[in-house]
């Protein structure tokens, strides 16, 4: 699947099917620090992502 990351904006490829929780673990991201968006929808850590999915991982922590 295609995974879009922010700060800076970039795209990485992760093999599916896999749960959101596992994708975050693979990318070494804390669930508490990000949200996962597929299309226009937020998905929880349990969501199963397929190989053809395109998701965005949105950081929620700001430093200002």
């Amino acid at each position, binding site marked *: 699947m295609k995974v879009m990351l*922010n*700060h800076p904006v970039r795209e990485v490829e992760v093999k599916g099917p896999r749960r959101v929780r596992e994708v975050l673990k693979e990318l070494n991201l*804390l*669930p*508490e*620090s*990000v*949200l996962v*968006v597929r299309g226009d*929808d*937020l*998905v*929880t*850590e*349990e*969501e199963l992502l397929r190989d053809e999915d395109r998701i965005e991982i*949105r*950081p*929620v*922590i*700001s*430093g*200002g």
Partner: protein
Amino acid sequence: MRCRKCKAKAVLDIPRHHTAFCKACLTEFVCAQVERAIAEERMFTTTDRVLVAVSGGKDSLSLLDILRKLGYQADAFYVDLGIGEYSRQSKEKVERYTSAHGIPLHVHELKEDEGAGINDLADLVRRPTCSVCGTLKRYHFNRTAVEKGYHVLATGHNLDDEAARLLGNILHWQTEYLEKQGPTLPDSVEGFAKKVKPLYRLAEREIAAYAIVNGIDYIVEECPNAQGAKMLLYKDILNRLESESPGTKQAFYWGFLARQEADKQARPSMAEHDRAVLHPCATCGQPTTGEICSYCKLMARAKKDGPATTVSP
């Protein structure tokens, strides 16, 4: 995962409350937490005029959205820091949101009124950018609220912001700052607006989720000056603890507030203390502890050092 309230498909799990919500119930939860914060900390009522300091980020735009939804009279105030592309984009988000919802927006332009953007000003006075930025924003938030006749100035600080700041203050035992870390600061003297943080009961992640499910178009990009900021490190550490034991952040910050409340009886109130130490700045009239306020000192220094370093003999 299902919504704990209505069994629809959940969009966000909230381990610290052992719950998960669908879109509609998440919005309801967030609004209820803000209502509770406003009531418990006696922030304002529907008859008060509230000025919300907006940056274009998720917290401040969501705060404006929530307050309006709850029926409060909330207007917006934006300080244009003149940080190139970042300021241009964040201002555009603010303008788009406020005009789409018919919300009055006040704007302060640093480049026009102080004569330079934040980076140049910080260079002129040779102080860290974020510290100069903090002084300028605090000053204009207060001044604009007072001059435009608002009862309260509201900022989008959330649970993560406050817990991280508390951690930083405690690590360095900056106990003099602890007193000012409550969600409500009184309008103790003439010229001093009441300051409130209605999002202090909500985690940053919950507010970002609110913004996304409510279609609020906010700036995801960070201020370029924030990179490597200490705050990000403290937040990351707290979130590691939170992931291991959900509820850590709220136990830390709310526990601090509860202790502070219990201590109150023993000490003179913040309002009494403020009245004893604050008086009008000799230059601009805004409340300060010194003879001249830190904003006026900063600007005097910028003017004095400014031309001297640029004009050649």
